[in-house]
């Protein structure tokens, strides 16, 4: 069963909080392989995490 984009956004977010199961990872990879929108989405959430880490580093002096 192919994941929908909506399901993919939930799984990508959840994957930032816990380890995904094997079948979730496989289905995610299949979907991302063919969907630019979700690939962009995944990259944006990864960037958001990076930006938040930078924000945390900066906060003492700013």
């Amino acid at each position, binding site marked *: 069963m192919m994941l*929908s*984009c909506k399901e993919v*956004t939930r799984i990508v977010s959840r994957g930032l909080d816990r380890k995904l199961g094997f079948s979730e990872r496989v289905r995610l990879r299949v979907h991302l392989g063919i969907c630019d929108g979700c690939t*962009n*989405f995944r990259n944006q*959430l990864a960037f958001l*995490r990076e930006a*938040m*880490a930078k924000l945390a580093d900066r906060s003492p002096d700013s």
Partner: protein
Amino acid sequence: MNDFRSRIERERPYLLRYASLQLRDAQAAEDAVQETLLAALAGEHGFGQRASLRTWLTGILKHKIVDAIRRTTREAPAAGEDEFEALFDERGHWIEMPGAWSDPDAALDQQRFFAALELCLSRLPPKTAQSFMMREHMGLETDEICKELSITPTHCWVLLYRARMSLRECLTKEWFGK
């Protein structure tokens, strides 16, 4: 009547403990008690001498606590759907596909980008912001966040999902222009 004011003020510690036990949030408890005392002052005439002052005040406080709980549960996941459903069609495909953000790495070197990020963070509903900050700013694991906020793991994931969805939209609008 100043006497009345000081009598109700004396009940503050009791009311505060009562509210804290219910709300598990010092600020929310303080607010509920403050609202109660103000309501009591305004409605002094409603205080029949038959009830004890403490009982009367506790009755008012219960309403304020219920209001506070309602305010927070309004943020709880609505069964099955939420505001981000609108991004997808009935088959779960993007209505408008996310485009790639241009040169995100350069943004991380710019002071103004972090101002935009903080603006977007400030627009999140309180509990959503709280859980997201605990996760991404303090670096806590989700089970710790659930415990601190006394919410279920599912609710926690929903809050984090919503935070990320709205921050993504907000940054697209406020910084990556489009």
